[in-house]
C-alpha cells in the first residue's frame, strides 16, 4: 500500500501580464472603452483571445511529483522560479490553470508570519485570532495557550497591543502560534527569513521535531544549510519547471551549481578573458601543494595570471574564500609593488598564494578574485572565479582521518598528564 499523501499531476499556472494598464486600477470606464477595439479585432480574427497587450507568463509548467507520508521536501530555486506559486496552489489559495492535485490529510500553510494579526489587538487576542485563521478551533488554542506563550517568550507583554511589540517579538509570537498547529501536512514558505539567529534556530528545531513526528513537510527556503539539515527530498524549480527531484543534498548541489567544481584550472584566450580596461584575467588555477589531490593535509596553491593594462596605479591582488553556501572564511591579498608605495607597471603578471596544510576542512569552496586600487577602490572583481573541493586525507595506516566539525581544521597542540592516580 502506498503512503502517498500528495499527488501532483501536470500542474501549470498561467498569469496574464497586462502592459497597457495597471490591473489594480481597473474601472468600468477602461473596460468599456476597450470593448469596441476588442470587438473589432475579434470580428477580423475569430481566434483573437481578447488579450491585447497582455503577455502570457507561465509561473508553473507541467509540475508532476508525489510526496510520501513523513517526507520533508525542500523546494528550492531562484527568485521567480515558481516556488511560492506552487505553495499557493497546494494551499488552495490560487487555482491551477491545468492539472490536478490530490492531498490526503489536513493541511496547514504558513506562507507569512502573523497573517491576520491586527496591530490594535493585544498579544492574547491576536493569538486567538491568528490561531483561528490558521485553522485551529478556539478550544485547541486555549489548550495550547501556555505552550505558545512559552515558545514565544512574550508573557510580560500579553496584554499590550501588538503594535507596540518589537519586530522580533512580533515574529516570535507569530511563529509560536503557527508552530503549534497540528496538521498532517505542513507547508512553510521562507518564514525563516525573518528573525534573528536565535529565532531561526528555534524555528529549525521545531520544524525538525515536526518532521520526527512523522508529519509531511513542504519547505521553501533560500537557506541551503537549513534545507540540507531538515529535508530528505529536494525539488529544484527553474523558471516554473521541475529541474530536479530527488535527494535533498543533490538538489542543493545542483542549485549551487556544482558544475563549477569541475574546473580547477581555467585558461582564457585573449578576447574572452574576463576583465575591463584596467585588468584582464588570463588564467586561474587551484592545485594541491603536495601530492595529486587537494585534501586536508595537502596544502593548496592558488595562482592567477593577469594583465595590468594601465600605468600609474597602486594595485593589490586579493581573494576571498567562501564555502559554496556563501560563508566567507577569509580575505587575503598582496600589494603589487616592491616597496609599499609604488605603482604597478603595465604588463603581464602572475600571482601565487599558498594556503597552508591543515587549514581547511573537508568541503567545497569557491574563490572571489579582486583587484583593488589604493587599498579601497575595486578595479575589477571576478566572483566565483574558481571552485575546488577539499577531500578527506587518506592515511596509509588506519584509513581516513576522522571527520570533524567546522570550516577550518587546524592542527593544534594538546598536552595532557595524569594529575592523580587511583579512583
Amino acid at each position, binding site marked *: 500500500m502506498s503512503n502517498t499523501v500528495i499527488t501532483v499531476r501536470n500542474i501549470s499556472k498561467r498569469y496574464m501580464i497586462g502592459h497597457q494598464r495597471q490591473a489594480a486600477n481597473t474601472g*468600468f470606464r477602461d473596460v468599456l472603452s476597450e470593448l469596441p477595439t476588442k470587438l473589432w479585432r475579434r470580428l477580423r480574427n475569430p481566434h483573437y483571445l481578447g488579450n491585447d497587450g497582455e503577455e502570457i507568463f507561465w509561473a508553473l509548467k507541467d509540475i508532476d511529483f508525489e510526496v510520501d507520508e513523513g517526507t520533508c521536501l525542500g523546494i528550492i530555486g531562484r527568485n521567480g522560479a515558481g516556488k511560492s506559486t506552487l505553495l499557493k496552489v497546494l494551499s488552495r*489559495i490560487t487555482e491551477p490553470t491545468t492539472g*490536478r492535485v490530490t492531498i*490526503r490529510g*489536513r493541511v496547514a500553510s504558513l506562507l507569512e508570519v502573523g497573517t491576520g494579526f*491586527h496591530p490594535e489587538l493585544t498579544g492574547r487576542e491576536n493569538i486567538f485570532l491568528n490561531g483561528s*485563521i490558521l485553522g485551529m478551533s478556539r478550544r485547541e488554542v486555549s489548550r495550547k495557550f501556555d505552550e505558545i506563550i512559552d515558545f514565544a517568550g512574550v508573557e510580560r507583554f500579553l496584554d499590550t497591543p501588538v503594535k507596540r511589540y518589537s519586530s522580533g517579538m512580533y515574529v516570535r509570537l507569530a511563529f509560536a502560534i503557527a508552530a503549534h498547529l497540528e496538521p498532517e501536512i505542513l507547508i512553510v514558505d521562507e518564514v525563516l527569513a525573518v528573525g534573528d539567529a536565535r529565532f531561526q534556530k528555534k524555528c529549525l528545531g521545531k520544524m525538525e521535531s515536526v518532521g520526527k513526528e512523522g508529519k509531511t513537510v513542504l519547505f521553501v527556503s533560500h537557506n541551503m544549510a537549513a534545507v540540507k539539515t531538515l529535508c530528505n527530498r529536494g525539488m529544484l524549480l527553474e523558471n516554473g519547471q521541475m529541474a530536479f527531484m530527488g535527494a535533498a543534498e543533490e538538489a542543493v548541489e545542483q542549485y549551487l551549481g556544482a558544475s563549477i567544481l569541475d574546473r580547477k584550472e581555467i585558461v582564457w584566450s585573449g578576447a574572452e578573458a574576463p576583465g575591463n580596461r584596467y585588468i584582464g584575467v588570463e588564467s586561474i588555477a587551484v592545485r594541491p601543494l603536495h601530492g595529486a589531490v587537494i585534501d586536508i593535509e595537502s596544502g593548496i596553491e592558488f595562482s592567477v595570471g593577469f594583465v595590468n593594462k594601465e600605468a600609474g596605479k597602486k594595485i593589490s591582488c586579493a581573494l576571498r574564500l567562501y564555502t559554496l553556501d556563501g560563508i566567507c572564511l577569509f580575505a587575503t591579498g598582496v600589494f603589487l609593488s616592491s616597496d609599499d608605495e609604488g605603482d604597478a607597471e603595465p604588463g603581464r603578471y602572475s600571482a601565487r598564494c599558498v594556503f597552508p596544510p591543515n587549514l581547511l576542512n573537508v568541503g567545497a569552496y569557491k574563490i572571489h578574485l579582486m583587484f583593488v586600487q589604493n587599498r579601497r577602490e575595486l578595479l575589477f572583481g571576478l566572483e566565483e572565479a574558481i571552485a575546488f573541493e577539499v577531500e578527506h586525507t587518506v592515511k596509509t595506516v588506519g584509513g581516513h582521518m576522522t571527520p570533524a566539525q567546522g570550516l577550518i581544521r587546524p592542527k593544534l597542540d594538546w598536552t595532557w598528564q595524569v594529575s592523580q592516580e587511583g579512583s
Partner: protein
Amino acid sequence: MSTGTEKQNSTVIEAGRSIRHYWKDIWRYRELFYVLSWRDIAVRYKQTAIGVAWAVIRPLVTMVVLTVIFGHFAKLPSEGDAPYAIMVYAAMLPWHFFANSLSQSSFSLVNNPNLITKVYFPRMIIPASTVFTNLVDFLISFAVLLLLMAYYRYVPSLRFLLLPAFLFFALLSSFGVGLFFTALNVKYRDLRFVVPFVVQLGLYASPVAYSSTIIPEHYRFVYSLNPMVGVIDGFRWAILGGESEIYWPGFLTSAAVTLLFLLLGVHFFRKVERTFADVI
C-alpha cells in the same frame, strides 16, 4: 492509492472545478465567522473614550433628527396612532443594519488582502462575518427601541414576536447584495464610489422617514422592487401593530427580489472566488 478510505480525507484541487466540499468547509471553519466579527468589534472600540455608547448614540440621534424634520416640519403622517418617533425608529433599525452590512461587506474582501493571499478558508466567511458584526449593533439598537417604547408607554401587539423573521429577511438581502458587490469590487475598484451612492439613494427610496402608505397605488410595484421596502414594512407591522397594514403584494415582491439577489450573489461570488488571490 487503491483503497476507498482515502476518499474521506482527500482533497482534490483541479482547474475549473468547484471544490465539492465548499459547504462542508464553511462548516469546518464556522468559528471564523465569530472570530472575524469579534475582531472588527474589538478593534472598533479600542482606544475610544465612549466606546460602545456609539452604537446607541448613532441611531438615537438620527431618529431625533428625522422625527423633527419629517415629523414636525414636513408633517408627514405617522402610521395609525403610534408616535412618529417610534415609526421612524422601527424603520431605522433594519435600515441601519442593511446599510452598514452592505457597505462593510462590499469592501470586506479588499480590506483583508492578506487573508485572501496567504491563507485558505472559504472566502464567503469574510463578508458574512461583517453581517454578523452588524447583528451585534442591531441588538444594541434594539435595546434602545425597548427603552423608547417604555418612554412612550407604548405596548406592542403579539406581532412583535414575528420580528426575528423580518430580521432574517433583512439579513438575507444585505448578504445577497453584499456578496455581489464585494466580488465585483475585487476586480473593479469603481465600487468604492458606487456603494455609498446606492446606500444614500436607498435611504430615500425606502420608507425610513415616511410611511409606505404615501406611495400612490400605481407606483407600488416598482417601489416594492426595493427589498428593504418589504423589510421595513414588516418591521413596522410587527412593532406598531394595530392599524399598521402590510401591503402583501409589495411584500412578496420584495421577498422575491431578495431571494433573487441572494442566489445571484452566491453564484457570482463562487464563480469569481477562485480568481481573488490573483487579482486583489
